[in-house]
């Protein structure tokens, strides 16, 4: 890839970063949208400097168990805009490792966003048709490794809650290694809804 091509791709990555910040920021959704609109003109370095971790969300999440989940299958929500003004959810259980993750609900879909230095997300189990995973990376600039240690990075998984289905995803974070950086396993997203159960169980651990 030529240097020019890389530079052309930078704005695309940058808009992805900002888009995910917007996704995670809830109360700051509108605030995050504004820089996204002008991101095409922002150099990569400036993007890195100006991007921030999502602002804390002071809303009280609604328990997953209190939600009425539609039984009709609907389409996977497309794009980040679809998630604006959705319900903030508290999963069935979360560990301290997932304390900063936020879970949104739209129709029968959950969007789990975790603002960590995420390097990779993998789906291990469950149908793939209506699920997606997305890492929001810093751009790879001029052949140099980006500043992986200081964020903001993050990632999301989106999947439906349907009776008889289950999902397992895992986030992997950036870690120190011989070759500069490596990957460490991190949060597991475990969702199951056995036919026999009234409500699904979603655990972030």
């Amino acid at each position, binding site marked *: 890839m030529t240097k020019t091509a890389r530079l052309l791709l930078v704005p695309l990555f940058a808009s992805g970063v900002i888009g995910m910040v917007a996704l995670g920021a809830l109360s700051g959704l509108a605030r995050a949208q504004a820089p996204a609109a002008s991101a095409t003109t922002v150099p990569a370095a400036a993007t890195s400097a100006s991007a921030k971790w999502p602002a804390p969300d002071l809303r009280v999440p609604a328990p997953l168990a209190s939600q009425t989940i539609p039984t009709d299958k609907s389409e996977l929500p497309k794009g980040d805009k679809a998630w604006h003004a959705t319900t903030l959810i508290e999963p069935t*259980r979360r*560990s301290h*490792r997932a304390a900063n993750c936020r879970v949104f609900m739209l129709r029968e879909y959950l969007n789990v966003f975790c603002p960590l230095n995420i390097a990779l997300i*993998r789906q291990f*189990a469950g149908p793939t048709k209506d699920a997606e995973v997305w890492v929001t990376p810093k751009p790879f600039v001029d052949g140099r490794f980006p500043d992986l240690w200081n964020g903001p990075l993050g990632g999301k998984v989106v999947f439906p809650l349907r009776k008889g289905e289950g999902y397992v995803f895992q986030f992997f974070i950036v870690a120190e290694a011989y070759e500069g950086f490596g990957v460490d396993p991190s949060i597991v997203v475990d969702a199951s809804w056995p036919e026999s159960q009234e409500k699904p169980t979603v655990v972030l651990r």
Partner: protein
Amino acid sequence: MTLASKLLAAFVIAAPALAAWGCGDPAVPPEASGSTGSGPSRVGSGTAPAAGGPAAPAKDRARQGSSVARYEPGGLVVVADEDHKALQLIELPVERETKSVKFEPPGTPAQIVSLGKRLLVTVRDDGDGDGALLVYEKKDGLDLTEVARVELPADAWGIATSPAGTHALVTSAWTAKVSLVDLTTNKVVWTRDVAREPRGVVFTPDGDSAYVSHLIDAPLTRIDKIGSEATVSRVPFPASPLRSAANERLSASLGYSLVLSPEGDRLYAPRHALGTLGIRTWFGAAAVDVLDLATQKNIATPRGGNAHVSMIEPLMPRDGREGLSTWWSAASTIVEEGNSAFIQPRAAVYRKSQRSILVASEGTDAIVELDAMMQDPTLGLIRSYSTLSDSDRIMGVAVQGGAPSGIALSEDEGTAYVYCRTTDELAVVRLVEGDGYYETVPPRYVKLAEDPKDPMFAFGRKLFYNATDYTVSGGLACAGCHPEGRDDGYVWHEVEFSNEGKPNGGKFSNFFGSASAARHMDAFWHAKEPRKTNIDKTGAGYARQTPMLAGRLKAKGPYGWLAENKDLSARLVAGFRLHRWEGPGIDEKEVTTGARINHLSVFVRAGLTPPPMKKRDLSDEEKRGKEIFMSEAAACSSCHAPESDYTNRSVAVIPGNVPRQAFVEEKNAAYKTPSLLFVGGSAPYFHDGRYETLEELIEKNGDRMGKTSHLSPEDRKALVAFLRTL
């Protein structure tokens, strides 16, 4: 009285008796309505509905046995100390100066249940080769009075009481039976044959059914209509679907325990999954399989082979950079999280307040707390409580807190009482709430018995159960495949590797749990370094069934399926090398390796107790079987020599030895004649486990081993009957 009113009256009288089995037993002992416990709660069991009113909720009396239990009326913790044929009584609270008091029951105790005033104890061997259920009550001071003794099939081990507290189910491990005992009359109601090595047992909340786990294989046994016909069926329950290859149904071992959720809707089976995919787990993985009792299916979703992945750009291959392959934990589509959450699950309890499961990890000297709400709780390790306070500087085995093998919780669930078998202690482990980083308080110990006089025996015992000493194995103890010195009933894949460019041809052999696991690990680690292996399209490695050890190691040698090791020491070294993933070469001349070999040799010969066998005269059929066995026509005894434990220890080529599916052919292999001691209980048969029963073995043998094709159906039956007496 009209006919209608007569019928109504009859119905009212009969209603309690017709009520559900768990609800309507009229013979509830006096204390059965007033006890509390920590078992799963269920409203409505234990008391018949009162005429004219709603059913009165009763205290749930469903309990499951363990080698350690709280005995509430006595204010005690009681340990079934099998190795010293004793019950160890420890007064609560445990203080620094607390000592245990030894009580000697008639036989070898295995599990305990505290039920009201009574203490129920299963006994493996009462000295005459029978099993038993002993019923005790506390006398003044630290003493017990036997109030009943119920004779049971030999090797009585696991126990569970019904929700009403009126009955107990007892598993007899070696004899593969389950018995129902009426605790109001102390009589056996029925005994049923089940699959090999039944261990953990649990009643369903309605008391109508029960599930049984096995030390061998993945399916559970289900018993329905316990109060009447008691029908037995097998519930398919493949292990660890999240860690298996696509469309594979994995086997399991070490199913010592079962745990029911407080709601009674989920059944947890902590065990060892065999043949899982993994980058380092040649031996398999930890699994807590969760059965949805409503659907009889595993809650876990099977692993998907090609699901979504997203990564940052530096992980992608580009400009000659390898990319993700460098980071093995994330590069694979295999679930690595929690695959070694525990090693050798020996016991488990549900911690209701935390919705978690505590599992005794025998091989790593720890109690691990797992999230019970996850599809496979091994993915959700909350915390690991080490039972270890100190370990040997050279061997790495426990000085204190070795091989946890039983757990009981305090009433507030803030303390776990843990029986540590290889150091003969009760460890009192303080539990914390929630997750997060927390330096747990070191356990307090109560010594139950003096250390064995022979230090070699003592070290050998610790090494046998320990999975962390890297010289002995690569992550799984001897007891992982030879539980209690018996066998896991599993056929392993012995895979050979060689590389002519390396010193000594780069030869080594390793065991794998499945052909898929062997292919996966080989492909992952050796993509850049092609090696010759005995892995091909048809299978991977040679078939090696785990042999039983207890009672079969008297001979000087040779050992190994091919008699390739001249004596036990040589076999142990071979085992050290086989039971790992490559790893360093083990030098038997190195002084500490030699010490390990010597210690283990002493323990496996003197410390592994053979299964109890009742001494009795042969029946007429068995005598006929013996005649056939000894006859020149059948020629069984020419190789299976009775005077040397039914083996001449020589090798023989078995004609027509076509390999089983997933294994490769071992050309011109000559197999050592195996001992037939305890053969009746060590199915499956043949070196590759292709025959499920002795009947099938004799039926399909033809004239390959001795000559049996000429035998009539009656004679074959007689021969099998005799073999079962060995």
